[in-house]
């Protein structure tokens, strides 16, 4: 342990250096005085006494130096001196310092921002003890995963063996809460086992009972509120327990406050209220999902038993998968058949909960991380170049110092200190920049009008990441120049000419490295942007100018028929409003990742069943096609008069090609239902038109085969009140919709409106994030590469001024001078381009899965990359080249 003490006391010495030195001097002086006094008392003369004292002491200076080294003082002195020197250097050339700090700050900032996002979305575990033990149960087929039905959850809970317990959670319910005034509060419902499984210890009060919220148990309405909700709505009052909230006309007492920081089982979730799962029956009195064995709506999580691995849990689950599904659905009405045919129970890591963001943004964020890494490398290389050029400008100084006896390590230490100062400044600016960038990105990802998707909060992890990054950057940027500085050969470098020649070759590796990184970044950005624009320019079978409206028409006094009638009235009133071209109702919002399917079959002319499959069923009112802008290509669209007649439908182009291959579909009949089922459950309809294919599910999914049917022919009630309104302006549409809704039901919450553009934005937020961030990187990369080339060339011109002057004096033409310069630059750029292209090829497969409508090997994109890069590099070349060409030989030679 004594070495530790030694180290500590040396570190402490850093702060008391001056005191230590004064103390030592005084101690030695007092020692000598005492010796002199004793000698004098023995009868020596003053001079004799002093001489004897010094003799018996030995070398005072030597002792003093030994003690000082022991205290670690010279090291500190050097550090202090290097620090002061570095500060003076920075002050002497603020431009250089600013550019270097900016370069580092941009690199560190971009990396911190993306890392903050990645950390918040992918890495941060749920704020509960040992999140690594958590697992998530899904109902999955390949990449498609769904939740579990209550029956599945119950069967799983009884039969699974790998986890100590499981709980079920659903959070999409958002209802009006009356706490003085009506308000929409995000909330969740869960089974009581959540508290034991997640080891949640409420901040105040207590959690639900173990069996609370289960279907078989009597419902006791109780609520826990989140810490934030408690602070904002109850001012953190400890007397909140026992207060009641009014939720859907039910009084719910508050029994506890959730632990601070826990407000959902995924990073993007911020609930205010937690209720027992069976409260769902209160929220949806008609058709509660908890009683519907076909509804796969629950997030189910468990905690692995000690010593059980995820692989073991998977094995255990696949062994009992059959039993569990049999228990959940003995008649095989829902599971293992139809839509859910190929779905199986699966278990996934649940460290960061049931995050949809993770599945949605996992890959894009990792891609951005990789691009960021390249960006950082480029920034470090540029910084290295900047520092190197500074160092080479001072080679003379280093040579002098080295000739005067400075150790190599001292020269390295000094250059590193200068880099360290720049890196620290870069770190501070970079972290601030990263913070702002991360917030901007989150805003970009968050649908308009929603609360922030994720909480960008830096943990120690992010801070360490930024610091680690800066250290790595500083070492990368500083070591090379430092090494170069220390390698001065005093005899040679003292002669200016040699120093210059050495400096001229500095860019030998830097330019190719920069160009290669630039090629990679620009290429990736172009591909990702091409993907984005390809998605965005394809309006997917809709046309811009439509506004989608979700009405909230809920009145306890209305029955379903009344509500349907009122909804239809709104649509009709809107159609008659001046400025509104068309308005229509539909059962399903397009482009919202919903699924609406039904089985249809067609018969051939002989009456045999011809084709049979699940298709998208969109139920609409007659105004639908003009309202959303889906073109009817053949036949005709719906008319109001169709409602009273026989069942009619419009089918999509791809559906027409499928059901009636090579034939004219208009006028033919397709039938809803199972072809081998009871004819009573089959409903035929006549095809009156063929519509263009539309991406009803999502912009990112191919357009499904679709059948459009008239909502009023099919149903007498329709609970989903979704309107599409096409008006001459959005403001007009919004105004009219709000007026109509208020007229009908003044107390209802205002309708939610969404323009087509917003819908596209939301559908493409992932692609937009990728294209805008990578585009930003590419621009930065271009600037850095151009600055690099410019810097190297213009220094070369300055340093070779004399040589160029002599060549010109000897008769070299100006274009010849430029050609020499160009050849040098071209070789380095070419090496970089080749290396960059090779790297791009090697990493192509990583990018391909993120692309759409463009391939990694696209020749056009490769050409564009080269064009942009070379164009900008040409600009960077022109200025130094023209300076070289305009050198006056006489002047250049006379210098020195």
């Amino acid at each position, binding site marked *: 342990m004594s070495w530790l*003490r030694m180290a500590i006391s*040396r570190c402490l010495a850093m702060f008391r250096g001056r005191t230590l030195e004064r103390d030592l001097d005084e101690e030695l002086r007092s020692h000598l005085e005492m*010796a002199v006094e004793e000698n004098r008392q023995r009868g020596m003369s003053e001079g004799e006494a002093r001489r004897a004292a010094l003799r018996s*002491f030995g070398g005072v200076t030597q002792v003093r130096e030994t003690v000082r080294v*022991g205290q670690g003082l010279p090291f500190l002195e050097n550090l202090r001196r290097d620090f002061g020197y570095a500060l003076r250097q920075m002050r002497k050339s603020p431009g250089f310092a600013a550019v270097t700090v900016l370069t580092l700050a941009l690199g560190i900032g971009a990396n911190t921002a993306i890392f903050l996002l990645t950390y918040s979305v992918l890495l941060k575990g749920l704020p509960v003890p040992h999140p690594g033990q958590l697992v998530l149960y899904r109902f999955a087929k390949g990449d498609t995963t769904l939740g579990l039905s209550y029956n599945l959850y119950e069967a799983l809970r009884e039969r699974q063996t790998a986890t100590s317990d499981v709980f079920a959670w659903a959070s999409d319910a958002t209802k009006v809460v009356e706490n003085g005034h009506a308000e929409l509060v995000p909330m969740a419902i869960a089974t009581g086992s959540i508290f034991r499984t997640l080891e949640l210890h409420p901040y105040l009060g207590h959690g639900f009972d173990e069996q609370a919220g289960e279907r078989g148990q009597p419902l006791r309405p109780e609520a826990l509120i989140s810490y934030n909700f408690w602070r904002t709505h109850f001012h953190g009052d400890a007397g909140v327990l026992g207060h009641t909230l009014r939720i859907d006309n039910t009084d719910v007492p508050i029994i506890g406050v959730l632990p601070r920081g826990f407000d959902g089982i995924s990073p993007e979730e911020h609930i205010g209220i937690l209720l027992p799962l069976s409260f769902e029956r209160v929220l949806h009195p008609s058709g509660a999902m908890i009683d519907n064995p076909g509804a796969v709506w629950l997030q189910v999580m468990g905690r692995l038993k000690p010593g059980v691995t995820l692989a073991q849990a998977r094995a255990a689950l696949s062994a009992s998968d059959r039993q569990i599904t049999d228990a959940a659905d003995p008649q095989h009405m829902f599971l293992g058949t139809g839509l859910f045919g190929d779905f199986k129970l699966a278990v996934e890591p649940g460290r960061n909960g049931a995050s949809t963001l993770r599945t949605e943004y996992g890959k894009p964020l990792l891609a951005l991380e990789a691009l960021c890494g390249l960006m950082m490398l480029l920034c470090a290389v540029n910084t290295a170049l900047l520092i190197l050029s500074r160092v080479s400008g001072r080679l003379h100084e280093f040579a002098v110092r080295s000739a005067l006896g400075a150790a190599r390590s001292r020269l390295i230490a000094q250059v590193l200190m200068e880099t360290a100062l720049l890196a620290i400044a870069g770190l501070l600016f970079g972290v601030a920049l990263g913070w702002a960038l991360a917030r901007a990105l989150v805003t970009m990802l968050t649908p308009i009008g929603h609360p922030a998707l994720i909480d960008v909060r830096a943990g120690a992890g992010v801070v360490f990441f930024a610091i680690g990054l800066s250290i790595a950057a500083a070492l990368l940027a500083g070591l090379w120049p430092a090494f170069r500085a220390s390698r001065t050969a005093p005899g040679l470098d003292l002669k200016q000419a040699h120093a210059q020649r050495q400096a001229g070759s500095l860019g030998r590796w830097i330019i190719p490295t920069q160009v290669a990184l630039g090629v990679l970044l620009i290429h990736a950005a172009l591909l990702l942007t091409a993907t984005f624009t390809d998605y965005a320019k394809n309006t997917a079978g809709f046309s811009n100018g439509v506004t989608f409206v979700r009405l909230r028409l809920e009145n306890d006094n209305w029955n379903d028929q009344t509500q349907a009638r009122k909804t239809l009235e709104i649509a009709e009133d809107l159609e008659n409003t001046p400025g509104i071209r068309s308005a229509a109702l539909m059962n399903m919002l397009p482009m919202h990742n919903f699924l609406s399917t039904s089985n249809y079959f067609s018969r051939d002319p002989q009456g045999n069943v011809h084709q049979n499959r699940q298709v998208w069923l969109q139920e609409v009112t007659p105004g639908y096609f003009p309202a959303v802008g889906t073109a009817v290509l053949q036949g005709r669209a719906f008319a109001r008069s169709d409602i009273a007649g026989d069942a009619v439908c419009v089918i999509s182009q791809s559906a027409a090609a499928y059901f009636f291959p090579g034939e004219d579909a208009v006028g033919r009949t397709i039938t809803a239902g199972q072809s081998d089922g009871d004819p009573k459950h089959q409903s035929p309809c006549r095809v009156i038109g063929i519509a263009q294919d539309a991406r009803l599910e999502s912009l990112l999914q191919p357009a499904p085969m679709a059948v459009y049917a008239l909502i009023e022919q099919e149903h007498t009630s329709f609970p989903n009140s979704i309107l599409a309104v096409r008006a001459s302006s959005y403001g007009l549409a919004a105004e009219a919709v709000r007026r109509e809704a208020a007229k009908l039901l003044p107390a209802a919450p205002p309708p939610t409106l969404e323009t087509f553009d917003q819908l596209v934005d939301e559908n493409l937020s992932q692609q937009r994030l990728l294209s805008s961030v990578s585009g930003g990187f590419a621009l930065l990369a271009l600037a850095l590469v151009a600055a690099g080339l410019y810097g190297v060339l213009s220094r070369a011109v300055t340093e070779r001024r004399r040589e160029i002057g002599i060549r010109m004096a000897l008769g070299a033409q100006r274009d010849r001078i430029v050609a020499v310069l160009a050849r040098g630059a071209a070789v380095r750029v070419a090496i970089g381009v080749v290396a960059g292209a090779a790297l791009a090829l090697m990493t192509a497969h990583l990018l391909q899965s993120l692309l759409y409508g463009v391939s990694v090997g696209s020749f056009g994109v490769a050409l564009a990359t080269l064009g942009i890069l070379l164009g900008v590099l040409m600009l960077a070349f022109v200025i130094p080249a023209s300076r070289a060409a305009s050198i006056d030989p006489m002047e250049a030679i006379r210098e020195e």
Partner: protein
Amino acid sequence: MSDRKLDVLRPTAGAAGAPMLQGTLDLMVLKTLETMGPQHGYGIARRIEQISEQALSLNQGTIYPALLRLCQRGWIRAEWGTSENGRRARFYSLTRTGKAQIGQETENWERVAATMARFLVRSE
């Protein structure tokens, strides 16, 4: 423990006259402080000179690196005080670990001395 044994056998630089082993001086300082109580550098040096009866021609200055070493190991501590003739001086005293260390160092040294003695007897 083993590193301390090696310590003892490493000769100290800076001591004139009879060659001295490192660790010897440290033990002398510790022992001096044990018998005399808190003492300043000059006092310690004089005491060592007297005890060794000039057999070791020790440069007084060499005790300062030794004192620093012992301080850094936490075996002794230093405090400013006033000497018997009214001069400001730094007084060194044993810490608790220092006191405990003396026994160990003594044992160590005795073992080395005994080994050396045996070795000398046999080779005669």
